[in-house]
């Protein structure tokens, strides 16, 4: 019974589906990166369609190869990405706030005012040095 099933074909199909979904996610978030109006929106939009997309692509690849080596690697990459990309986004976002990157005018900033005030007054002295980096 098992002999009749073309495992390779199944793997290929599953893999293809995953890859295509992943790639589509990635493409969409890249378009988002182009289209969205302010930095923060772009950031939250793609953080991370790209991560998900990448995860799917990699999973697809892992299934295609179907080897422990490959699974280990795929899991490693996915683990890394899922751990690191939000951290990176957080760090960059925080930096952006500190560097006074403006929000979209329709953003509701009510609860954020205190924070902004505190951050920016703390660094007023250093603004001069930072006119252009």
């Amino acid at each position, binding site marked *: 019974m098992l002999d009749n099933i073309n495992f390779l074909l199944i793997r*290929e199909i599953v893999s293809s589906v995953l890859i295509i979904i992943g790639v589509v996610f*990635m493409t969409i978030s890249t378009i988002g990166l182009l289209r969205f109006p302010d930095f923060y929106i772009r950031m939250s939009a793609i953080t991370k369609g790209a991560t998900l997309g*990448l995860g799917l692509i990699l999973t697809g690849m892992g299934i295609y*190869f179907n080897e422990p080596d490959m699974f280990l690697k795929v899991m490693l990459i996915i683990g890394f*990405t899922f751990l690191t990309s939000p951290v990176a986004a957080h760090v960059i976002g925080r*930096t952006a706030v*500190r560097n006074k990157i403006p929000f979209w005018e329709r953003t509701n900033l009510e609860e954020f005012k205190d924070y902004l005030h505190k951050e920016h007054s703390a660094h007023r002295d250093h603004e001069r040095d930072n006119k252009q980096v």
Partner: protein
Amino acid sequence: MSLFSFTLIFAMASLSLCLVMTGIRFAIGPTLPDRITAFDLFVANIIGMVAIYTEFTGNEDFIDVGIILSLFGFLGSISFAYYLMKSTR
């Protein structure tokens, strides 16, 4: 050409397109964090391309580079953030 390889070609093409779009975002900026984000996505795109290429060639060894890239893309982002942070502090 099998379905699978067609998928791969499609994927590669899409990722290339992504690469171009990311590049455009990088170019138009307008702020540095935007560029850093674009850079981040650029790295993710490249990892994706490496993954696809690995399947393309059936040579497992290439994905190792993907691992390393995933580790180091992070370092790149952190460094840029560090730079911005340091220059305000």
